[in-house]
């Protein structure tokens, strides 16, 4: 497994599942920006163990992931925010997650403050020969800056999962209609990969 750290987000590209602890921790904090968009990860390096086409696929999938997380931030902050373009980032289970979140938050009147930040991405199980082509993303998301407020502005943090370390997510991505989209989502019971 090759771990690449760049642009403030640790990106790991590999073909085997990540170990319980990451081979390398992020070496830099996420880059703060004025905008709500996170910094764009640097493409995978040329010395990756992945073939160039695999590295490119990983790069595209990772970009979809980062955009999706950002869209989640936007929907969390404003449930009425437009979901236009989400079909370019996600499909199936993951698409529905965002749609369901928007619908629920709109009814509940909950709003999110702060933003989730992707601190590292590890790409596994790249299978460009599959139908459709697929890969897996192990993602660490820093939620330490997040709170959710109810309609009256009261923090609901007591009901939230806010560990000291980033939260480990595992997404499946598939190349659909020429784009890499997030299609499955798991939360490993043991968060060790991001601790």
């Amino acid at each position, binding site marked *: 497994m090759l771990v690449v750290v760049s642009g403030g987000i640790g990106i790991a590209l590999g073909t085997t599942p990540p170990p319980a602890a990451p081979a390398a921790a992020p070496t830099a904090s996420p880059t703060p920006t004025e905008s709500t968009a996170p910094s764009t990860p640097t493409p995978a390096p040329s010395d990756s163990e992945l073939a160039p086409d695999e590295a490119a696929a990983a790069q595209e999938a990772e970009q979809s992931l980062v955009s999706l*997380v950002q869209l*989640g*931030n936007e929907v*969390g902050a404003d449930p009425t925010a437009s*979901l236009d373009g989400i079909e370019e980032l996600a499909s*199936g*289970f*993951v*698409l*529905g*997650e965002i*749609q*369901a*979140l928007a*619908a*629920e938050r*709109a*009814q*509940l*009147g*909950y709003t*999110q403050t702060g933003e*989730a930040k992707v601190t590292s991405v590890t790409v596994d199980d790249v299978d460009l020969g599959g139908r459709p082509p697929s890969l897996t993303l192990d993602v660490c*998301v820093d*939620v330490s800056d*997040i709170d*959710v407020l*109810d*309609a*009256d502005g*009261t923090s*609901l943090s*007591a*009901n*939230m*999962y806010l560990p000291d370390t980033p*939260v480990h997510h595992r997404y499946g991505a598939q190349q659909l209609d020429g784009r890499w989209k997030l299609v*499955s*989502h*798991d*939360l490993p*019971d*043991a*968060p060790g990969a991001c601790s």
Partner: protein
Amino acid sequence: MSERSEAPRLSTRRRILTALAASVAVVASTLTAPLSASAATPPDGLTSQTAAASCWEIKQSTPSAPNGVYWLVTPALVAPQQFYCDQTTDGGGWVLIGRGREGWKPQYTGLRSAVTLRNVTEGTGAFATAQLPARTVDALLNNGRVDALAEGVRIRRATNTAGTAWQEVRFRYQSRDRWVWAFGAEHRVASYSFDGLNGSGGQTNSFGADNGLRRVDTNASSAQGYVGGLAYGANVAGSTSASSYLWSKTEGAGNARPFAQMFVRPRLTTPGVSYPTIADAGAPAIERSALPESDAIPTVWGVSGFGNGKSGELNTEVQAFAQIGDTVYVGGNFRYVQRSENATGADKIEQRFLAAFDVNTGQWKPGFRPVLNNQVKALTALPDGRLAVGGMFTTANGAAQVGMAVLDPTTGANSGWQLGLEHRLTGGVAAVRGFSVEGNWLYVSGAFTHFLRNGQAISSWNGGRINATTGVPDASWNPLLNGTSVGVEASKSGDRTYFSGYFRQTGEVFTPSGTAIQTVSGAPVVQPQWTPQFSKTNAETTGNIWQLGVAETNGRVWLGGSEHSLFAYDRGTFQRQAGYITKAGGDFQAVEATDKLVFAGCHCGDWVYSNAYNWDGIGTSWTQGDKMNLFGAWDAASGAYIPDFNPIVQARAGYGAWALFQDSTGALWAGGDFSRSVRAGEVNQWSGGFIRFRARDTSAPTTPSAPAIVKDGAGAVLTWNASSDDRGVTGYEVLRNDRVIGTTTARTFTVTEAIAADRFFVRAIDAGGNRSATTAKLALPAPQPEPDPDPVAEALIASGSAWQWRYDSAPLPADWTAPGFDASSWATGDAVLGFGSAAVATDISVGAPAPRPLSAQFRRTVEVSGAAQLSGATVTVRADDGVVVYVNGQEIGRRNLPAGTLTQNSYATAAPTYGAATAAPAVFEVPPGLLVDGQNVVAVSTHLNYRSSPSVSFDLALSAQRG
């Protein structure tokens, strides 16, 4: 009770008998046969025993019948009741079904009493609106279609404040099978007229030709304080005066509510309706189906305030119920339990989020004092008798418990195994939204991704199940819902569990807002797959789409939520079988089912449309538009909305019902932000967060015992022993010949006129409308039959009678034996007829042609009455020499004549002397039935053995036995 009508009934029968006896036309067997026992007196509506089928029938039978109160009964009405009939307007025959000024209600149950309605029909005393229950209106139509009423619906309205001018309105429905008072719904009007000026179109919420007097507006507008009425258009102003016939909430406001009366004119007649036949053994009991009463139970305790300080839609005072033993637990976002609206001190106790009440008395149980730090959204009894609590809280009795706790049912302390929740998705807010127990599994819905048990996280996305004994989550059963689930229903069959909520998928399967998951390991989706449908086209993935309530009963899965829809799906195929849309508001948010009923709640206060599938345009193919006020009931077997359950309630902010629960007594607990309700007698009361509705009585009284009947003059007295009933017997119905003729609270009933053929039955009734099985038939003893009189010999033709005769050689005239033959040209003479003997009274040889004819013919007509009573009729005739006898053209016998066709020249085959023929006459039996009432003809032909025979004689007697 008057029996006035009975005397003429029996008198009429006696007159008939007398007349028949006089004509000897009634055979003895008829005297003892059951007579028709129906009343002979035309239904005049003046007593319960002479109740008519309609006002119209009374008017037809008694054209001079005045306006007033009459007894009416139809098979659907079952027992006679009194109604007011307008017998003068437009030919009369109108029955009053509602009247009043402002405050007309859309509830199916009507308003105020039928007594009030019928007794006070005019004047300011009639301003307080009274409406018959819709089922009573239907019964007046004998459950006929409303849109089949020839004249439709009639409204008589005052057109000025003094009530000195009036307007007549008629309108007909486009399609309406049963009566509803929900005029504010979109019931289409086919045609209407205002004082004879015709128009068409519109809906019952507003139709007419202008915006003034020629309009009926039934909308309960905010400008009129949401007070309904049969209002005029906006250009007609009303007054706030108590005596004004045109009312408005504010002086001069348009859409005045006039004093109005509403009539229908069903043209039912007693002969045109039929009552179910009751066997001699009696009729079975009639029991009502299970349903809560629409009147609220008087409030004993309620809840109030906001435990978490928030008052929004998802923070209503009450959101969950559960029962353990005789305790009902109420959970939600309340802060206090209190006895009354303005309670203080010991009558208002701070007890946030969860409290316990006695299931029977409604009394608060102060020993149950759990301490939670946020609202409760789910409650259930665990198999071991502990209480599982779910919600938004994060501590329970001081211990960290995110979203879930298990409590001691008596004290509210934490008890036994505990676990919590984690929601690891970004921004996820962990909460439990629902519980359902099946077997030893506790199924959980909510917002979470993991159960947390003894520090170990077990993945279970937005739903899961827990071993109720050990508290261990089932790691092999992860529904993988990609959004929050709200409703959860474990099928009683144990094979599947349903979830509703915000999710779009179950794992990789598209299951928008509703899913059915097998209970086997791995939690696979049930096949065939359930893909819920929505009331807005293409709304599966966008917009305000969520489903909050789900329940299964009687082979159907009910799913309710946005947008305003409650749909029922076949359990096996998941084909949608029924649809209900609420309009104007709102979304369904609670669905609960029992074996017999489905309850659903919403933030809706207007109308629920049956067989409707789209919102907000409901189209015109829906079949019913009924009132539904924040929650309603459906029949689990048929899936039909039950309009009879129509409580009048108010909610603090209109959020409506978020929890519905039937306790062990059958009482319904409706929880939400309820603030007021109406109990029996139209009494408005405070309700704190929840309202209880007693199960209506579904048990019939016992059958009256020891029934007896004794003759009492021309009538009879019926007696019986008291019946018993779980809620009390309110009276007894006496039936005669399949129909109720009277209701009494006594245990005796006098029928002033009764005959043995009358079949009486008695049954007990209760206040809930249940009827016991009837007694077996009661009847007076049959009268002793009149002894059969000795048969009397009756001579129909005596010897020596006069006969028409001919003695001629000419051929016999055609049909000379037939009754219709004209023998007026024949001679007439008394018997004995003939010649050659001293006994001959009429010598037929005088003037006879030569040679002497070989035969002579004779005819006589005899009048017979009561022919059916005659028997043994015989003809005795001398045969000198030969003779043949015909009765009414049919030969009954011949002697000394050859077989075959006889002519005027046929010879007799023997030549007996006059003396021998007289001593041994021929006797022929007349076949039964040959003699008829009226004229009968006996025709005879005598023949000589040889032309020179010295003598011929003829005489005949016809006799019979009568009796």
